[in-house]
């Protein structure tokens, strides 16, 4: 009896030892030398694999950081400055402070949804609808409302507003990874600086049609009249292809353009009170267009 037990233990022991040796040599042979720093950097990253940095995922980003040795041209938008600093510490390099950004939907929510001109009945995909026709609003540049951006967001930071049919960005959750901007087939969503006290001014329209044509489809369209550019003290506004654009690096959020814009295409968010034009009464088109307060409402959420 004892003998049998002994034999069994012995046999198993020898087999175990043999495979342990085999395993050891195999492990030595196929050892992959990897910088442990990569693991440390990856540890610091948010791990959402959003792809906002342009790399395949967080791990790929960490590899890029370590192989490069510094953070030049590499930035994890969701992590922001805090993460950048941690990585810089690990790599032992300097870090440049980036301006915090947020995704901005440049299509006027007050227009869409309510004033549908047709009823889209196909696949719920903006990318597909864009190949079929202009979309329910009739604007060939406007939001299509199927929510490709919502599906692309890893942070639950962008949602469809059922009342307007356009997406609304949750500023607190948005990490400015840019996934929504990439997903939008009409390139409506842009990453812009958050601005001081989260206050910012932007043109909420990307319609490049001539003024009259643009106005026909949307009362809040930018008609490229150039009034905003004239009134801007910082020369931050440029007009190209009948469309005005505010450079957020130059803009000081004085809101002169907001009052000047005849179609209320320029919006301001997170300001305490609506901007008012000192002397002149409201423009004639005003009744057709919603009041600035109404425009602000969804973005201020």
């Amino acid at each position, binding site marked *: 009896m004892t003998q049998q037990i002994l034999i069994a233990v012995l046999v198993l022991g020898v087999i175990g030892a043999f495979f342990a040796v085999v395993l050891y040599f195999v492990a030595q042979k196929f050892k992959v030398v990897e910088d442990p720093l990569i693991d440390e950097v990856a540890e610091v990253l948010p791990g959402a694999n959003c792809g906002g940095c342009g790399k395949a995922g967080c791990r790929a980003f960490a590899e890029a950081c370590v192989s490069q040795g510094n953070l030049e041209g590499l930035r994890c938008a969701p992590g922001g400055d805090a993460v950048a600093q941690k990585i810089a510490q690990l790599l032992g390099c300097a870090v440049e402070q980036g301006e915090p950004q947020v995704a901005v939907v440049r299509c006027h929510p007050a227009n869409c949804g309510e004033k*549908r*001109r*047709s*009823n*889209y*009945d*196909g*696949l719920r995909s903006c990318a597909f609808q864009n190949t*079929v*026709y202009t979309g329910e609003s009739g604007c060939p540049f406007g939001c299509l409302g199927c929510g490709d951006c919502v599906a692309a967001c890893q942070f639950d930071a962008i949602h469809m507003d059922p009342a307007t049919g356009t997406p609304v960005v949750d500023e607190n959750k948005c990490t400015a990874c840019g996934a929504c901007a990439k997903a939008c087939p009409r390139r409506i969503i842009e990453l812009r600086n958050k601005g001081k006290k989260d206050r910012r001014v932007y043109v909420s329209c990307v319609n490049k049609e001539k003024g009259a044509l643009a106005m026909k489809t949307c009362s809040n369209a930018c008609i490229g009249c150039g009034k905003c550019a004239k009134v801007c003290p910082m020369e931050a506004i440029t007009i190209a292809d009948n469309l005005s654009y505010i450079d957020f690096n130059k803009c000081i959020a004085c809101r002169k353009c907001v009052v000047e814009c005849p179609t209320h295409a320029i919006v301001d968010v997170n300001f305490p009170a609506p901007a008012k034009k000192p002397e002149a009464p409201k423009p004639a088109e005003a009744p057709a267009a919603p009041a600035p307060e109404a425009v602000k409402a969804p973005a201020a959420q």
Partner: protein
Amino acid sequence: MNLLNISGSPHVHSDESTKKIMWRVNMALVPALLVAIAYFGINALLVSIISVAACVLFQWLIEKFILKVPTTVSDGSAVVTGLLLAFNVPATVDMMWIVVIGALVAIGVAKMAFGGLGKNPFNPAIVGRIFLLISFPVQMTTWPQVGGLFPMDFDVATGATPLGAFKEGALPEGVTFMDAFLGHVGGSLGEVSAIAILIGACYLLWKKIITWHIPVAFIGTAFVFSGILWLVDSTAYMDPLMTILTGGIMLGACFMATDMVTTPMAKSGQLIFGFGCGLLTIIIRNWGAYPEGVSFAILLMNCVTPLINRWCKPQRFAN
């Protein structure tokens, strides 16, 4: 005027729907149900009603309170599962509560746990049946003896099925091909009558819900394989015609192996699937522990369906 609708082409639809398909399958099961009621009486009807009600109820409860999605019980798929489950159990009084457990397993575990209709890898009714067979072996193999037409009494005599009897030694006395064809033999509720099942299958073929590939491959393989065995030794193995007429081969081949969700899509894949089912059934029947192997065979082939789908591609237009 209304707003114009815009969509990509095509702008018309064949008017087919999942709902129509499922209710047509239910229609096709009616002849077998009627035969069951004729032979097993009120028990058969009660077991069927309880099974169907339990399946529908469980699906509704799970969708409403656990998954919190719009309920889809009206599409009739739970009714199909309920009927098929009832068809796979003996029509006895015990079954009237056991079948509820089967329904819970079929709907809850085999169907809804995988995401509901269309996502289940295994045929829910078969999973439910096998669960019951393993959990309640005595009750699941206590077969009511077929008496006269429309027996109304609950305590019918019990006896063996032809397959069970054969496993023990020999076919019961006096069971003819005609008995097996019409269903005048012991067995599970809905599987006894080959003719009733074939009527339902013809309806499905006519409505183009199933194609001939799986049933023919299944029954054909079973017939040929058991025929070879029978030619080798006609005392140890069953007559091939009797083989396909008794037990669950007809029901399995026409209704359970043709379940769209869990079987291959390409014609070639369907032939392989049917072949596998037939082969496994005969193997289990002759050399396995159980007298009947249809449900195990189908379940096993369900496992390889994704593989078959991967390898059996339709013929491309020009390749």
